[in-house]
């Protein structure tokens, strides 16, 4: 038999979580937006997470690719390695590039199809080591779609203070796309 949920607030000694904080959010308006930037990111957290829900403006193409850079660095200082499924086969590829790759994103595949993606940026404020991220992203359009599991490296010891997201080919992000930046505290 089914059982019903119990509101957490009703649990004696209910769980308290305060290590995960919302830092900033951008929601794209009716005119669209070519790039999304988070600037002046505080260095007071241990890790960052970017949560994306987006659709690309790319006429005539079902999909596009989401890419991003740190601190406006557009040199070939990024490593991208990914495992991808397209619904019929799994594949993997990797190499260096001038941006980090964050997976396939819906474009003209359907008006109501948006792509979720989560990007974990670990130890982003550390100035002694290169930075590493991981991404889980996927889009399904009932007959087509992709799922991506991605590693990105940034060959820099600088603390990350700016994140810029954009499309590889399209003109920008469509209305209702949203990008939220969160900070995760360390002990």
């Amino acid at each position: 038999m089914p059982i019903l949920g119990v509101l957490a607030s009703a649990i004696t000694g209910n769980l308290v979580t305060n290590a995960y904080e919302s830092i900033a959010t951008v929601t794209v308006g009716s005119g669209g937006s070519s790039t999304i930037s988070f600037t002046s990111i505080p260095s007071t957290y241990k890790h960052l997470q970017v949560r994306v829900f987006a659709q690309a403006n790319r006429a005539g193409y079902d999909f596009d690719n989401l890419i991003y850079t740190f601190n406006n660095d557009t040199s070939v200082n990024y490593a991208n390695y990914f495992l991808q499924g397209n619904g019929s086969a799994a594949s993997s590829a990797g190499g260096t590039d001038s941006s980090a790759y964050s997976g396939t994103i819906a474009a003209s595949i359907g008006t109501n199809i948006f792509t979720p993606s989560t990007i974990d940026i670990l130890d982003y404020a550390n100035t002694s080591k290169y930075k590493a991220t991981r991404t889980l992203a996927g889009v399904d359009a009932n007959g087509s779609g992709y799922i991506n599991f991605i590693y990105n490296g940034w060959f820099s010891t600088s603390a990350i203070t700016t994140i810029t997201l954009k499309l590889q080919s399209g003109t920008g992000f469509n209305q209702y796309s949203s990008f939220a930046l969160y900070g995760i505290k360390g002990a």
Partner: protein
Amino acid sequence: MAAGSTYTPIATQTASGSVSQILFTSIPQTYTDLILVIQATESGQDGMDVQVGNGSIDTGNNYSNTYLRGNGSSAVSYRTSNYYSFDTGIVNTTVDTIIVQLQNYSNTTTYKSMLSRSSSTASALAVAGTWRNTVAINQISIKNGSVVNHGAGSTFTLYGIAAA
């Protein structure tokens, strides 16, 4: 930049015995994303079906899924179209862990998207899914096909993440 604590537990359930379905209802609309964390044992091998709805659970063939799976010997990708659920994982009688993300679950403009990662002795699996409905989600059901039950001690926790 604004900042505020989030990743808030909304509800949690622990199966006290063998149950066929876990149901979360009256989910508040005050968050941006939902995270469902499942650690379960099941009475057999099956898919972990997550179904959603507004006021009632949609059990129609209005879902679709794209999969990336490793089974211990190879990696494969496949798809289920016009399916009856978000097919979030392949579970069995050992402990199975599944994390399901429902992003922008309360908007009334777009179809709803799901990302899941699961692990069990049956597979390591990632799934992207879509529910072809623009209504806000305020109910979630978790079950396994028609004959497999959630075992006693299985836990299901729903979190909300609110954007600034």
